[in-house]
C-alpha cells in the first residue's frame, strides 16, 4: 500500500515540474506519458529531495523511477 500523504506530495512535485495544476495518472503508469523528459526528471529528483529532505542514490536512471509508485517507494526507503 502506498502512503497517500507521500503519494500526494510526490504528485504535487510532478505537477509543479510539469507546470500543471494537478496530474491525473495511476501510480503505476509511466510519467513519461505526461511529458516528463530526462531534463525535467532530474528537476523532479531535485524537487523531491528538497521536499523530503533526502538525497537519492547517485545511480539516477529514469526507467527506475518513472512511476509514482517507484518514486514513493524510493522516498520511503530514504526517510526510514
Amino acid at each position, binding site marked *: 500500500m502506498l502512503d497517500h500523504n507521500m503519494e500526494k506530495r510526490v504528485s504535487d512535485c510532478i505537477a509543479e515540474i510539469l507546470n500543471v495544476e494537478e496530474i491525473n495518472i495511476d501510480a503505476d503508469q509511466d510519467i513519461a506519458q505526461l511529458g516528463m523528459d530526462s*531534463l525535467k526528471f532530474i528537476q523532479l529528483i531535485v524537487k523531491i529531495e528538497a521536499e523530503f529532505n533526502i538525497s537519492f542514490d547517485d545511480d539516477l536512471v529514469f526507467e527506475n523511477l518513472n512511476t509514482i509508485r517507484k518514486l514513493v517507494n524510493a522516498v520511503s526507503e530514504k526517510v526510514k
Partner: protein
Amino acid sequence: MILIRSGVNAMKSVFLPISNPLSRGYLHNAYQLAILGTKDETKTWIFMNYIQLISEIGNHRFPITFYMPDHMGYNWSILSPWFEYSVITRDHVKQLKIDFKELIKSSLFNNQYVYLYVNEKYIPGTLSESLDQNFNHQILLYGYDESTGEVAFLGYDKNRQFTKRTVNIEHLELSYFNNTYDFEMFENRIYLLKLRKDPGFLLELDLNSIIDQLINLRDSKRVVNNVIDYHRDYSYKYGLDTYDNFMVNLKLFKEKNIQGERDKLITPMHIAMEHKMMMIERLKYISALFPNINVDESIKDFSLLKQKFETLRNLMIKYELIQDSHILEHAMNELIGLKENEKKVLTRLIDTLRESIVQ
C-alpha cells in the same frame, strides 16, 4: 512527399520525410541521421561510421564527439555519400540578389532538405528567442506550407528537446540575414540536400572495417583519415582517451575554474551515452545480417554501459541544478572504472567478430 491541393487558387505544401535520429546530442549528427533514418538502405553506412570518438586537447567545449570528418577535416559536417548536394553561400545570395524565400521554397518543393546557419533569436521556441539574444546556430528545413507561409524545421527548443516546429518564412529570412557567423568558412553556406535513391555504389557491411575501428576506439589510436590531422600536429585525443579530456573538465568544474555545464559536461556525457546506444543498434543490425554471429553478450555489455553513462549524464544535469561538488567526485571515480570496463567489453566484442570471420 508533396501534397497539392486542387482548385484555381491551389496552395501547395511539402513535408519531406524525417525520422527520429539515433543521435541528438549535436545538431549536425541529428540532422544527418534524421534524414538517413528514413531509408533502410543507409544503415550500412551509418553503422560503419559513428564508431570512433574524438576530442580536441585544450578545447573544453567538446570533450567527447563522434569522429566524422569531411574532406576538409571538418568534424561538424552534415554530409554523407547518401546526399546529393549543392551549396550556395550567403555572399552569393546577397551579391546576386537571389530571393531567399524563393530559394528556400523551390528547394523544398524540389525534395531538397535545406541546412544553414541562422540567428536563433528569430526562431520560435528557442532559448535565444525567449531571452531575445543573438545566437548563431544550425537549422534543418524539411517542409513548407504555402497557405500559412510556415517553414517546418528541426531543432532544439528552449527545454533542450529536439523537436519539429515551424517558423514563418519572413522570420526565417530575418534570422538568415541578421546573423553573425562564428566561423565564416564553414557557416556561410546553404546546403541543399537530396537523399539519393542509390548512392551509386554497393556498400556492404564490412566486418573487418568495423573491427579495425573498434580497435582504434579501444586503443585510442590516432586516426588519420585526412591531412588536416597532420597539419594540426595531433592535437587530438581519440577513442576512449576522450574520456580523459572529459575528466579534465570535471576537475576544472570542481576547482570552479570553468563555466558552462551544458556544453562542457551534459552534452558530452549525453554523446557518450548515445555512442553506446548506437553500438547496441549496430550489434542488433549485425546480428540480423549474420545470424551465425552471436553478439548477445556484447549487447548486454553495452546496454549496461549505456545505463551507466545515462546515469552520469543525469548527474551532470543535477550538478548544473544544485552545484554539489560531491557529484563531480562521484563522476570522476565512475568514469575511471567505466573506461577500463569499456576496454574489456570492446575486447570481447572484437574477439567475437574476429572468430566469426575466421569460421
